[in-house]
């Protein structure tokens, strides 16, 4: 099957502040590389879960895919066209193909527009349907996300967090996108509401055959919703594969540490036992470690890891960028 969205060597870099004193001292201009040569494929109807710690470049990657950041290198190919090469008007015409749902449903809705105004604006701007069809279309969209027409003339302030996130999803669906990029869509919600929104994503995906890039730091949520998972660390993808495969047999030490560190409720733990799994913190992306980026925190790092960056086998179905991937999982089945 051909990929719906093909990302190749995508690099997003930001120029850092360059002061006049830096120029006088003839210092080099520095760059922060947020996303570093990332390759990813999104298959039609797939949900790709992207996990990683804050600052690892998940959101930068998502924003680059959306066209909100201009990538410094690489290609983002959707349906045969490279989106990084599009002109302004071409891009505007195609931006309905990928839509985004943001983390915070409080700051991503205009407080001065009713739900109807928001949806209508999009439908009109992108010429989605004739004027007479708009009310019907709005009703359909709201129904799809579990709201009814009576909600259409209210302002965002009269909705709860979960309902607002439904409105954000409705807004994303209004343009019949092929891909939805959801950046931590349930992180700001309470547990009982989170489940409602997750179920909505699953239901919509089945009904509309959507392709979803689902970004989250919550591994259990990603496991629930994704068919494939990519683990990101300091701008690089460290491991990629089918979701169950990654959760059952993580090969990269980082993936394994993430899985073990996450607090879970389904395994008995002795609360008085000190269980520290990883030392140290994420290094600054402005000052990347040599060799494998994870080696300063990795429990199985050797000299080779400090010298040489491990390569990623781009063709394998379960890929892992590590010199010493974990091949066997001794406590298989427990996780």
């Amino acid at each position, binding site marked *: 099957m051909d990929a719906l969205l093909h990302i190749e060597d995508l690099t997003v870099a930001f120029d850092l502040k360059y002061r006049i004193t830096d120029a006088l001292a003839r210092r080099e201009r520095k760059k922060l590389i947020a996303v570093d040569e990332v390759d990813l494929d999104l298959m039609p109807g797939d949900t790709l879960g992207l996990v990683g*710690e*804050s600052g690892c470049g998940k959101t930068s990657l998502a924003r680059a895919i959306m066209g909100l950041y201009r990538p410094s290198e690489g290609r983002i190919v959707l349906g045969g066209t490279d989106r990084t090469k599009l002109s302004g008007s071409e891009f505007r015409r195609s931006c309905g193909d990928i839509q985004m749902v943001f983390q915070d449903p409080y700051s991503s809705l205009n407080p001065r527009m009713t739900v109807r105004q928001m949806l209508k604006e999009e439908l009109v701007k992108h010429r989605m349907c004739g004027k007479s069809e708009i009310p019907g279309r709005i009703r359909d969209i709201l129904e799809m996300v579990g709201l009814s027409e009576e909600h259409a003339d209210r302002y965002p302030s009269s909705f*709860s967090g*979960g309902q607002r996130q439904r409105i954000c999803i409705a807004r994303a669906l209004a343009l019949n996108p092929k891909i939805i990029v959801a950046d931590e869509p349930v992180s700001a919600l*309470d*547990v*009982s*509401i*989170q*489940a*409602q929104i*997750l*179920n909505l994503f*699953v239901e919509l995906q089945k009904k509309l055959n959507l392709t979803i890039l689902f970004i989250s*730091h919550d*591994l*259990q*949520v990603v*496991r*629930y919703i994704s068919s494939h998972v990519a683990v990101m660390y300091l701008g690089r993808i460290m491991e990629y594969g089918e*979701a*169950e495969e990654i*959760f*059952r047999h993580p090969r990269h030490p980082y993936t394994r*540490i*993430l899985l*073990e*560190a*996450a*607090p*879970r*409720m*389904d*395994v*008995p*733990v002795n*609360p*008085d*036992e*000190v*269980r*520290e*799994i*990883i*030392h140290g*913190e*994420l290094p600054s992306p402005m000052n990347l470690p040599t060799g494998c980026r994870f080696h300063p925190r990795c429990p199985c790092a050797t000299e080779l890891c400090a010298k040489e960056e491990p390569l990623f086998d781009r063709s394998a179905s379960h890929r892992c960028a590590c010199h010493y991937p974990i091949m066997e999982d001794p406590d298989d089945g427990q*996780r």
Partner: protein
Amino acid sequence: MENILEVRNLKMYYCGRRETVRAVDDVSFSVRAGETFGIVGESGCGKSTVCRTLVQMQPAPGKILGGQVIYRGKDLTSLSEKEVRAYRGTEIGMIFQNPMTSLNPVMKIRDQIFESLKGRGLTKKEMLDQAVSLLRLVDIPDPEKRVSEYVHQFSGGMRQRAMIAITLAARPKLLIADEPTTALDVTIQNQIISLIARLKKELGMSVIVITHDLGVVNEMCSRVAVMYAGRIVETAATRELFDSPAHPYTKGLIASLPRGDGSGDSLKPIPGAPPSLAGEFPGCAFADRCPHATDRCRTERPELRPAGPEHFAACHLTGGNA
């Protein structure tokens, strides 16, 4: 084991001009010496407010309208503002969710630790030594240098460590941790959880953890209370709560979380949203979202009643007549 803290029928309402918000409504629980007790619930359920009320730190229109907070034999609600100050920080320490907003950005970490050390008659040199050893205690690398830095020079995890160090400087016997790991990444979260577990052992503290994350409860707490709409709906030992939840709300919470087994079973969310606390509920606050609610649930308020060994649930349907 003796109880270090016993809360009996605590009531704290926000008495506004137009309405009364029942933020803490008849809450009772106890914390044993040396244990970690969890209070879990969704946002707005009153879990943080309860803990602030313990040391009379509830915000402005809030009034304690009844109940007792018995800390080592002394009722804190009967104390005056001046008297209760002797307990805040020194006997009962608090750490908060967002270290950036609870630490002073224009004071060096050193000076913030000094504030807690003042009044012990230490010389400046001794205070500095104390500050350095406190930072070392919470695993901040290079503490001699770090002690003279400002909060913004610290990373998220280190800020939380620094805050713990400041709180510990006064040597509290009871530590209240309000969502201590919520803003942190899983790897850092794991470090802070193990840090608190280690310090609890080394310093012989009791800990109250407030969280919305059932995973954190499982990792940290030996006993837990579940709060909903200002009331405690269930309390039990942690494993008992997860293995045999008695209250429909607890059951709903557990069923709405993705299980770690990859079974892909559909999640079962709790329908609706939590009620506004400004209303008056003659019955059970959860009745409107409860799949088993009866007429009795809407009219008569359920009391906490036994549902197992050291396990209590406030539901008409538990116990004998389930």
